[in-house]
């Protein structure tokens, strides 16, 4: 379809229009992502330089631990996510809907909340809870990404292998697994990224003993004021991220090409399949353990069960730990997340539309833009927040003090998710359906309004919901940028935990439980809205 006749403009016109429309997301990425990140890079190269940092042995210890724990968590998430993917894609059993929603809850839980939830179970922290917590977040990514493809893999290939004499296990390893490979690769690269740049849980569970690049950047900036060292480490992290993104991009491209339209009907499991279903249920109940543990911890005090933590949220904590009350922080969280969601929706939906439009007209630019849009997903939020601090004063009216700073940073984190949810749905709209509308007299813009958007409406709502909860829980960039007099709930939680006092920690747990309830409720509503396998996460 990519052919353009020599000297013919009818096809070149729309392509130019689309490229022009790409300027909005590109400008947003340029100002609020590339500029701050490049400033960090410049800082790292400029001052002390990267080489001295690279030459130090403890830098490589950091790199080793960062990649090691990410690899461990990725492997764990893959192993535990596969049975859940199987259940979601293939099985018609009671409670599949519950599993679908339950597995999604951890993914959107604020990192600080998860950190605290695991600390409620492992009070001393350590490597094991770090790996477990990172895997805990990402089981959903594996289950949804792999499950989404699995539901579309033709069951008859497997049946044919069985008819030819392959055992159930053999049929799985020789037929099913290879066809799932692109989704597994794509999920693994995304999970690895999330784990390698995970901030909140490592900070809460690792303390000063177990540090990753991400937390080290934070500590060097905030506590040691070693800006060039932090910048150099950011650079190291950035290099790793780009490598993983490129690999993931290749895997994703394969997958999207291979996506057939039909969805295999689910059926009741037979024989050994029940074992897999039981394993999936086990994974889900394990996922819910920290969640329940957190609620219990928020109610348990030295004097028995009490709502003291919740009551204390109206105040500013023990001996005035906080500048504002917990309630004000909660309200501020909601306001900030709302602004962030609106910005991210605007940028995300425009990006998705532009990506689909560019690809329909066969532009090479689509692939590049697609990967560029995913970059913020992988670059550490801490690096980003740090970058904002050293660049945003150059914008009119010293942007560093603007109340829009935090929403914009959050929007940057949320936008890739929105693109990933909306894009596959828009891309799945049959080109001929759009052509039918055109032959009936609908102009190109009218086709979007009458066909694409109505068909994607549910995923748009779901994307907005997801965007909101992720913004609500965003911690990395927010902790850098939120002004002391306007913190969000996750920032308040971290502050409370870092200060002594039984009431403070009780308050932190109560705030966590509240955030979790809001998040879970949002996820449940979204799950009802989503079309089956509508997106990647």
């Amino acid at each position, binding site marked *: 379809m990519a*052919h353009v006749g020599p000297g013919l403009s009818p096809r070149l016109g729309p392509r130019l229009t689309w490229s022009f429309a790409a300027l909005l997301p590109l400008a947003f990425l340029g100002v609020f992502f590339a500029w701050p990140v490049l400033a960090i890079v410049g800082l790292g190269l400029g001052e002390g330089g990267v080489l001295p940092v690279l030459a130090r042995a403890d830098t490589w210890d950091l790199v080793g631990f960062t990649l090691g724990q990410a690899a461990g968590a990725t492997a764990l998430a893959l192993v535990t996510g596969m049975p859940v993917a199987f259940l979601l894609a293939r099985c018609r059993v009671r409670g599949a809907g519950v599993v679908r929603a339950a597995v999604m809850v951890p993914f959107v839980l604020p990192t600080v909340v998860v950190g605290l939830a695991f600390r409620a179970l492992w009070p001393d922290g350590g490597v094991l809870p770090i790996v477990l917590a990172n895997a805990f977040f990402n089981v959903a990514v594996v289950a949804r990404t792999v499950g989404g493809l699995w539901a579309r893999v033709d069951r008859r290939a497997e049946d044919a292998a069985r008819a030819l004499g392959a055992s159930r296990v053999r049929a799985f390893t020789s037929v099913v697994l290879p066809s799932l490979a692109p989704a597994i690769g794509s999920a693994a690269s995304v999970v690895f990224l999330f784990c390698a740049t995970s901030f909140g849980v490592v900070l809460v569970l690792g303390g000063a003993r177990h540090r990753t690049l991400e937390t080290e950047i934070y500590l060097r900036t905030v506590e040691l004021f070693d800006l060039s060292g932090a910048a150099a480490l950011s650079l190291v992290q950035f290099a790793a991220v780009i490598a993983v993104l490129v690999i993931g991009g290749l895997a994703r491209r394969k997958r999207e090409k291979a996506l057939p339209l039909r969805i295999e009907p689910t059926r009741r499991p037979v024989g050994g399949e029940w074992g897999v279903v039981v394993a999936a249920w086990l994974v889900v109940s394990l996922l819910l353990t920290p969640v329940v543990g957190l609620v219990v911890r928020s109610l348990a005090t030295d004097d028995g069960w009490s709502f003291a933590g919740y009551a204390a949220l109206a105040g500013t904590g023990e001996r005035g730990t906080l500048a504002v009350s917990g309630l004000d922080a909660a309200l501020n969280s909601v306001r900030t997340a709302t602004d962030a969601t609106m910005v991210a929706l605007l940028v995300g939906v425009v990006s998705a539309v532009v990506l689909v439009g560019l690809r329909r007209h066969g532009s090479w630019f689509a692939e590049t833009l697609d990967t560029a849009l995913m970059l913020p997903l992988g670059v550490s939020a801490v690096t980003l927040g740090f970058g904002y601090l050293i660049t945003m004063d150059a914008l009119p009216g010293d942007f560093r003090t603007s109340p829009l700073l935090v929403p914009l940073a959050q929007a940057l984190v949320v936008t890739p998710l929105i693109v990933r949810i909306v894009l596959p749905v828009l891309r799945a709209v049959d080109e001929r*359906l759009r*052509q039918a*509308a055109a032959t*009936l007299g609908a102009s190109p813009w009218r086709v979007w309004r*009458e066909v694409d958007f109505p*068909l994607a409406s549910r995923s748009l709502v779901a994307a907005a919901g997801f965007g909101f909860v992720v913004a609500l829980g965003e911690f990395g960039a927010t902790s850098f940028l939120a002004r002391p007099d306007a913190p969000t709930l996750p920032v308040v939680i971290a502050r409370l935990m870092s200060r002594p006092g039984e009431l403070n920690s009780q308050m932190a747990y109560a705030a966590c439980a509240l955030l979790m309830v809001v998040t879970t409720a949002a996820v449940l509503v979204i799950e009802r809205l989503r079309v089956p396998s509508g997106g990647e996460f």
Partner: protein
Amino acid sequence: MSLRVKGLSVRYGPVPAVSDVDLDIADGEVVALLGPSGCGKSTLLRAVAGLEPVGAGVVSWDGTDLAGTPVHRRGFGLVFQDGQLFPHRDVAGNVAFGLRMHRVEREAREKRVAELLELVGLAGYRKRRVTELSGGEQQRVALARALAPRPKLLLLDEPLSALDRALREQLAVDLARLLRETGATALVVTHDHDEAFTLADRVAVMRAGRIVQVGVPTEVWQRPADVETARFLGCGKVLPASVAWALVGVDARVGLRATALRTDPSGTIEAEVLERVHRRDHVRLLVRIGDDDFEAVAPVAEPPSPGDRVTLSVDHDGVAIIG
């Protein structure tokens, strides 16, 4: 009020899909584009609709070149093989779509929708969800939707191919009646010659991106332009003039369809039965005449068995003269 295609070529990258095609469709005429899959007939139709960039040549309506006219301003209706109904709209919403795009007032719109649903035999289906319809019903809705804004030209891309046989034959007859009744000017793409001959006033046979023959159905059926066209139109056997004269009494190169030779006790051609296959309304035989193999047909009752010797007579309806 007529379509003219002149020297049209469409390429997919380096691959030519349609090469130097000329075709005219007069007002109220139904033309079928007939050819095997991959011959470029759908591409030609899409180029006429404005959905495919034209490499060379001209598509014009009433003498006006359409090169600068985008799809949505051409006023050509299009029906796809699989309907492509809007899943988020009900039956009435689908049929009314084109009317809304043309800013037809609400009352006139509803009247027209009712009229069309009546026409395609789906009165009372207004509020039905399109996902609940059978394949045949979906295709009827798709047709009503395409006809609603009174298109200048109706383009049908294999409109019946996705349906099963009984339904397809029924719908082909319905569709033919509908096209006559509405006086539509139409271009139908199909790979099925029965369908083409049922629907069309004229048939254009297409092969490898080129139109190789245009004519009324009987002409194309009885006098295919070349050997490959004859084979595509069901002639399993092609005989040079000398052999044709001896066997069927025609002094020309001919193509024989299976029905050209029938078992007949008073026939003059002697043959030995090699194989026998039961078909819907006849028995298909493979026979040996002299030292060459031919297809022949026998009645379903008491068909001969392999090894039997039979006599055959020629049915000239099954004989096509090539060239």
